[in-house]
């Protein structure tokens, strides 16, 4: 009898030891795993830190009033600036949003307010998502084939068309998402007053979702301001300012990303410093857009308790 119980006792303690050891191992694995994920974060931070430091450090010394406002001088000896590139970026992005914003917002309205779950809406939704992943260089080909070849020269309209195609699916998606967050009671209040649906949609629903829709537009603007590839085949780049004449619309235009790309290919020291300067200006434009975005997002979710802010 005594023998048996001591054997059982021993067996139990062996099992317990094994469990304790196993648990230690499991806890250790958990620690290792936590450490690895933190290392992943650290790895992702290194490039961000380095990019920001290098762009600010090398870019700041290039920036001056002349740099921001003058066309490029001799690239070998320096002088001049990136005025035409800044002007061109603002113009081509503005032109693209003249097409992209209305189309994007209206299509978003259709998907959220009119379509329900019909097949056409499903197709529009699906292919808009697919288009967000379309490489921008492929989209540039549209501007080249349809407009550059037809006009006979590189021009701003081709660039704006290509950028608007990149912009639209982003605006459509965010607009639809935000409109769907607006509570039904808001729309019903409008309908109960006998207001036609299109006015309810534009002046009540869309207005309550204003911040979200703006978020989508800003996101799209910051994305297209940094695009380079489609501009190579549409606006080409130049060292001259855009002229507001009829001829201006049939001439090449410059843009910041394009200027950085061309400068980076040159072996001169001034080109490098100009490149960093242009990069700093571009990053300031894009990051200030994304800061503005953050500011809007804080207010984005529809606060049911706060009621409608019409």
């Amino acid at each position, binding site marked *: 009898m005594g023998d048996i119980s001591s054997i059982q006792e021993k067996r139990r303690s062996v099992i317990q030891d094994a469990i304790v050891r196993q648990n230690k191992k499991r806890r250790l694995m958990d620690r290792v795993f936590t450490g690895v994920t933190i290392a*992943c*974060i650290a790895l992702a931070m290194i490039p961000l830190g380095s990019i920001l430091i290098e762009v600010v450090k090398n870019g700041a010394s290039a920036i001056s009033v002349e740099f921001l406002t003058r066309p490029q001088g001799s690239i070998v000896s320096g002088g001049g600036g990136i005025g035409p590139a800044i002007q061109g970026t603002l113009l081509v992005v503005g032109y693209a949003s003249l097409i992209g914003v209305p189309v*994007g917002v209206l299509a978003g309205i259709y998907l959220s307010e009119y379509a329900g779950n019909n097949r056409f809406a499903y197709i529009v939704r699906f292919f808009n998502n697919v288009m967000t992943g379309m490489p921008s260089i492929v989209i540039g080909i549209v501007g080249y084939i349809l407009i550059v070849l037809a006009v006979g020269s590189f021009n701003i309209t081709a660039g704006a068309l290509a950028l608007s195609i990149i912009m639209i699916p982003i605006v459509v998606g965010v607009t639809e998402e935000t409109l769907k967050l607006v509570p039904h009671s808001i729309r019903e209040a409008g309908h109960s007053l006998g207001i036609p649906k299109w006015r309810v949609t534009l002046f009540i629903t869309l207005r309550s979702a204003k911040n979200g829709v703006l978020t989508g537009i800003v996101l799209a603007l910051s994305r297209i301001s940094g695009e*380079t590839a489609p501009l190579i085949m549409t606006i080409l780049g130049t060292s001259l300012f855009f002229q507001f004449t009829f001829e201006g619309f049939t001439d090449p235009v410059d843009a910041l990303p394009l200027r*950085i790309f061309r400068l980076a290919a040159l072996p001169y020291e001034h080109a490098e410093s100009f490149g960093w300067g242009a990069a700093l200006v571009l990053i300031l434009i894009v990051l200030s857009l994304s800061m503005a975005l953050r500011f809007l997002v804080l207010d984005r979710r529809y606060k049911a308790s706060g009621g409608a802010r019409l």
Partner: protein
Amino acid sequence: MFLGKKRKGDRIFRWVVIGASGYTLLMLVLVAFSVIEGAIPVFSLEGLSFFIGTDWNPVEGRESYGALPYVIGTLVTAGIAMVIGVPISLGIAVFISEIAPPKVGTPVAYVIEVLAAIPSIIYGLWALLVFRIWLLDLIERPLYQAFGGTLPFFAKAPFGLDVFTAGIVLAVMIIPIISSISREILKAIPNSQREAAYSLGATRWETVRKVLFPYAKAGLLGATVIGLGRAVGETILVTMVIGNALGIAAIPTTLFSQSNTISSVIASQFNEAVTPFHSSALIALGAVLFVLTMGINIGAQLLVSRMVKVVPGGRE
């Protein structure tokens, strides 16, 4: 009378919004039309051998164009980017959604979003002037000295502009994309799944590996495929660091070989194309890229939409 007027306004507006939706589809059709239209001359010259040819000769009279080296270059660089980028992205997503308290997770998520907002041209400039030198000194040269004589992968003296550099910089670029979509997908998993695992005494690692990952398999795969689509289509960054080899020389035989991807050939040669066949060959490469990325993105959408609706924030 009053009612009739109301209905008229509604009818017009309805057609306006349907028209806008149709316009978005029309753009996709125009993209497809343009790449096919522009590619016709080179297909009439080369026929199907365009896809398997390895020559690249734009000299008039002796013109010959083959896409194969660039397709291989694209797959190799994208492959390197995925091997490095996917595990890191999943680590980041898990840290933010499962491990970090919100006080830490929210700012980290914001920083990752900033990384996603930086234009690829700036990644390119940084990679060309700064990061390339780091890689060369810290990784490429030591690898070459250690294995250059024995392993064929490393058997080429590196100088920084090669498929390895392009792959790594691409990884840096796709990490924010894959990690933020994966984060959304992990967030969409019901809490009951986690609670069930913890109540059985599972550790965090076990919960993530045995409960959350299997549950979110399709969605995480979709996030990865979206990243792959970006890596395959990214142009300017790759053009700046891949070394721009042409023809048969663009088939990478080592990690440190110069090469070219489909998109980087288009970007680097488009403005130099003088003959109609040369332009057409570049657009035909665009057609190949179009088909490739359409396939990848349609696959990704089908996978991801099963889990969550992705915020279609472009690179976000």
